[in-house]
């Protein structure tokens, strides 16, 4: 077994947004979008980040790319030496961003309609002084064929492409600088089923041929199971379970994971009606409950859950869960 090489280490990441009130814009509270999330991503791995809206998965992804600056915590990126992304200066960030790129959810709003594919995909190459003129065009040609687009279409504008093809343009743009890490934020959720499969296969093939590492943000659990090696489950800004994908789906150790797996409608009419339906709603991250964030909706909650925040504990090798009863609860798999 090859020793796993850590590429990215996120620890105690926090991002708070102040809420201001009154004429003096007095700070009245904080939206705790991400509230102490820790996980690591190994070289060549696909780590899935799952959770419902408002759980902080997109904020986490954006902090990792320093698209936004986190309130506290560290993000170590190992590229030769370990560097803290949160403490990088302008020049260091420029270097870092050659190694860490993003693919967006919406293939319509993420491409500038007034730029041709050549300009969109080639922009990063040009700005970073990697290639100019003929060499730039050649490189864009290679990138386009890598993602299954016809290189002769490089002078066309985004409107001339379908949703799936636009997503391919976004992928080519992310690949342009040969990054090590790609943060893919819901890369397939705006696409139709038949197109979604094409994009997943493409991302998977690129990973194999280019040795990429993905942080895959998604809410579709079947995509996560198909594609990722490890999973981080988020709930209201906190990680409630971090585990190997197979183990998570076979033996979840946090009641929220159990409910999430069970809530997904399965494409099998024989399994109808056999699921856990949670009451209540995802709490507002500005006014999250005390103790375990999940306790108001948790079917197993006890007195202690109301007052004490459960620590993240290793329940088995490389499988972490933050639940007071993760050792004793018998939870259902998918």
């Amino acid at each position: 077994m090859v020793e796993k090489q850590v590429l990215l280490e996120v620890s105690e990441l926090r991002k708070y947004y102040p809420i201001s009130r009154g004429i003096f814009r007095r700070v009245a509270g904080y939206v705790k979008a991400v509230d102490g999330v820790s996980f690591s991503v190994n070289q060549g791995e696909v780590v899935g980040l799952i959770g419902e809206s408002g759980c902080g998965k997109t904020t986490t992804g954006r902090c990792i790319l320093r698209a936004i600056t986190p309130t506290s915590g560290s993000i170590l990126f190992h590229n030769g030496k370990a560097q803290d992304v949160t403490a990088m200066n302008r020049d260091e960030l420029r270097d870092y961003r050659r190694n860490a790129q993003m693919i967006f959810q919406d293939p319509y709003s993420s491409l500038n309609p007034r730029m041709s594919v050549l300009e969109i995909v080639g922009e990063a190459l040009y700005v970073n002084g990697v290639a100019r003129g003929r060499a730039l065009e050649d490189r864009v040609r290679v990138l386009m064929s890598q993602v299954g687009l016809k290189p002769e279409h490089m002078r066309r504008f985004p409107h001339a492409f379908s949703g799936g093809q636009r997503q391919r343009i976004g992928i080519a743009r992310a690949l342009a600088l040969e990054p090590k890490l790609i943060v893919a934020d819901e890369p397939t959720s705006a696409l139709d089923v038949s197109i979604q499969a094409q994009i997943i296969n493409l991302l998977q093939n690129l990973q194999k041929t280019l040795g990429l590492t993905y942080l895959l943000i998604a809410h579709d659990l079947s995509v996560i199971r198909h594609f990722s090696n490890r999973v981080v489950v988020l709930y209201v800004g906190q990680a409630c379970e971090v585990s190997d994908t197979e183990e998570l789906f076979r033996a979840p150790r946090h009641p929220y994971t159990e409910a999430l797996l069970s809530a997904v409608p399965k494409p099998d009419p024989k399994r109808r009606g056999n699921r856990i339906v949670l009451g209540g709603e995802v709490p507002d991250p500005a006014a999250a409950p005390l103790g375990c964030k999940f306790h108001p909706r948790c079917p197993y909650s006890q007195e202690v859950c109301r007052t004490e925040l459960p620590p993240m504990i290793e329940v088995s090798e490389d499988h972490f869960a933050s639940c007071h009863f993760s050792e004793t609860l018998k939870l259902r798999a998918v």
Partner: protein
Amino acid sequence: MDQQKANVLLEAKDLKVDFILDEGTVRAVNNVSLTVKRGKTLGMIGESGCGKSVTAQSILRVVPSPPGRIVGGSILLYAMNGDASVDIASLDPKGKAIREIRGREISMIFQEPMTSFSPVHTVGNQIGEALILHRRFSSEKARQESISALARVGIPKPEQRVDEYPYQLSGGMRQRAMIAMALSCSPRLLIADEPTTALDVTIQAQILELLRKLQDEEGMAMLIITHNLGIVAEMAEDVVVMYFGYAVEYGDVNQIFEAPLHPYTRCLWDAIPSIDKKSDRELTTIKGNVPDPFSEFAGCPFFERCPEAMPERCELSPPPLVEVVAGHRVRCFLYEVKANG
């Protein structure tokens, strides 16, 4: 046969809807036939642009017109005892007859509850509107009824919520309020167009549970439009698969999931990753894209993407509708061969 007929609530026969635009004509719905049974759920599945929403809009006669027009076929809504029927397709879309049906006999819930509520009226006023209109309730009585409708869909503190505006409710609550509005006059058919697409998984589970519970209580039929195979498997008794304006396959939910017949249905089934097991194989993809809406096909619209296409045959003439097993119909040449010999 009569027994079977008596179970039918709504029957669309060879429905055709065109959109006549400057750029050309979009044949949004092509000879679609389907049946909604009393008290049962029909799941309509397909990708974007397959005509599923237009079919639903035709049933309520709310297809934007111009440019949309029903150019053929009928939509029969049967009365309680199953003899008399109204052809919705032939009614005047602004007339009294269809307005008697909308909201009372058939009502609809939408994907994005925020855009289908009026932002400047309270939730209670919007729910009560149909009651005042169809049932001639006084406004006080309509308000009381709205409160109990909100309570029935599981909204906490309904007497307070009834006076709030839609923006004050969360996404899940808004969808519940919309269901309350749609069900205020106890319709016989509820059309749900992607009812949970905008919601989170755990909230989606709540809404599906609620719809099923209300269906049991009210005995209403449902037409659920979705692109999510899981929702269809979970909710529907019968399924219709749409592609490019055609109903390519129609059957009972078990038939469709266990033995899908149309190559498109089979491709769709293989294209979704499984949540139950990890497989190392690649996902099956359907080559190419959904055709441009202006395209015209002499033959089968799925021909270019079909893994089992028969060049001469499928390209030249439209595929026949074949009933392969009782109640399981498919629009494909592959089965014509089998049926004939």
